[in-house]
């Protein structure tokens, strides 16, 4: 096992092997990824969303490619809490990396029940609260755009997380992301992850209908990266730095320099998503590249770079 001591970071009380984390919904339950890389080099894996009851997800087409990006409307397809406990937790237990479970639900009570149950599992190191999914009618983004609801749901879930850190995933589809970030922090969030996808649409001009069965989807990929870097920097400056809350920055990261931009902008860790769909070993290449960058630049630990933007 190869580890890079210069990449070790503290993230909301967890020691991560590297600041590179797989984004929710883009790495399955990591078993697929293990065929392409040594998952112990990852800082953490974020599972796809888990809801109390199983969800079939949306009809197809669920994705469409755009210039330098893609829209998805999967609809939080997942096996539900019970099967997750029975079938997936044993798999996660065998992985030598930290595990964040992404929580989804239609009501606050559903989020709480899932968190409460999983908080007792040793296989799980923390939670990511998904209040920013643009592709479901109830829950998801409806929580994430209202600071009052964000406070309510964050504190309710935080109460049942025991000692496990709670990260709140923010949507970029708001007027001022610092307001939603501040609401999460005030309610007890241990970390923030941003950004989720941007609500978007692609139209088939022959049929004059949206391409996606769900009509709209979430835009991800390189197309959103500059906006995501800006929003991470804004939240870092206006909320996270003074509160001492780490940011998991993400949005279109594909290369080593993409990841560095987010860290320089203020992220403690970076999430890799869409790029994994094209090269499943993207995270490995970014980890290698970050280690090389630190070595070449004479940086003893990558945390020196966090928020160093001039």
């Amino acid at each position, binding site marked *: 096992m190869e580890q890079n001591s210069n990449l070790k970071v503290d993230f909301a009380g967890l020691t991560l092997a590297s600041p590179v984390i797989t984004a929710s919904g883009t790495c399955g339950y990591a078993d697929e990824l293990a*065929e392409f890389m040594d*998952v112990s080099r990852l800082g953490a894996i974020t599972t796809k969303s888990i809801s109390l009851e199983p969800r079939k997800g949306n009809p*197809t087409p*669920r*994705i469409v*490619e*755009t210039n330098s990006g893609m829209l998805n409307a*999967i609809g939080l397809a997942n096996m539900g809490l019970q099967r997750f406990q029975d079938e997936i937790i044993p798999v996660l237990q065998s992985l030598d990396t930290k595990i964040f479970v992404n929580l989804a639900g239609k009501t606050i009570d559903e989020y709480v029940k899932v968190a409460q149950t999983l908080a007792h599992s040793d296989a799980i190191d923390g939670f990511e609260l998904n209040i920013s999914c643009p592709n479901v009618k109830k829950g998801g983004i409806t929580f994430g755009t209202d600071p009052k609801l964000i406070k309510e749901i964050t504190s309710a879930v935080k109460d049942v997380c025991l000692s496990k850190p709670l990260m709140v995933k923010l949507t970029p589809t708001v007027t001022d992301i610092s307001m939603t970030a501040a609401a999460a922090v005030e309610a007890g969030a241990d970390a923030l992850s941003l950004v989720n996808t941007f609500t978007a649409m692609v139209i088939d001009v022959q049929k004059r209908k949206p391409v996606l069965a769900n009509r709209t989807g979430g835009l991800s990929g390189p197309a959103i990266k500059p906006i995501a870097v800006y929003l991470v920097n804004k939240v870092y400056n206006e909320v996270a730095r003074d509160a001492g809350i780490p940011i998991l920055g993400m949005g279109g990261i594909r290369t080593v320099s993409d990841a560095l931009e987010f860290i320089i902008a203020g992220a403690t860790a970076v999430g890799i998503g869409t790029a994994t769909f*094209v090269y499943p070993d993207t995270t490995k290449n970014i980890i290698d590249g970050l280690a090389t960058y630190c070595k070449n630049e004479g940086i003893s630990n990558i945390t020196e770079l966090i928020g160093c933007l001039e």
Partner: protein
Amino acid sequence: MENEKAVNKGIFEAEVLSNQQIRQCYYRLNLQFDAKGSRLFENVAPGQFSELDLSNVSLPETSMIPIHLRDTSAKQILLRRPFSFSDIVVSPLTEGCCVKAEILYCVLGPATVRMMSLKCDDRISVLGPLGKGFMVPDGLKQAILVAGGMGSPPVLHLANHLKQHHPDCEVIAFVGAKSIESFPFTVRIGNAKNLVLEEFERIGIPSHIATDDGSAGYHGFVTDNVRHWLENNPVDPASSAVFACGPEPMLAGTARVAKDFNLPCQVSMERMMACGIGLCQSCAVEVKKNSDTEYQLCCKNGPVFNAEDVVFEEE
């Protein structure tokens, strides 16, 4: 951590051996896999597929791009594109790079337009082999292959496989297309209205042609042609099976015919997909489960499914 699970797919490079136009928008791409790819593909099953990274392939000269695709082909490529194979040849005497693969493709969008410009010695990144292919049951005596339009390549792969590995199995192919112009094969015109598909003829498999417009062979859907044939040529359900790939309504029709004749039927499905390895969850196929249905993934649980399990999307 050592990965204990046997690695059965990977990312590797393929070298272009040739890239030839068959007719109109149909092309044949021949690839030589590198040593890693050859190892991974040695025991590939017909119907398994791959994902090609075409993002670095440049657009051909504007004059080469079909007029109706000039506007949309300017779009950049981000995601890989899934392709099945029409043949995989393993040369047992060659060490290392022993696998050659053939892909038939139709130019219909920004990625396949770029593929037109691939030339000998170009290298592309391949992810594979992916998914579950056709399963040849033990004791199979008669295989009825049904192919529609651009769904034909994996059926040809299966035909090649059966000829090589199951020489006792009788194979018959039914191939349908919109018109005489739209078969993705090398077509030879024999007797009046009679088309010969050379790819099947070469391996001694009789092919029955159907065209929607009657421009060649049976006038009508390939599924109706299969039904007529089965009505006149009884087969033993215990030792026969139907294998199909093509547009979804054609697969649904094939499944109905197979059911009416009590024949087991496997269908290869198609969905828009990003990753091809079960990560993105985009390629959902609705499958019957108990009294309800669930979504399975075309890339991982398929693309070949038992026809009786699938809830087909028919327009």
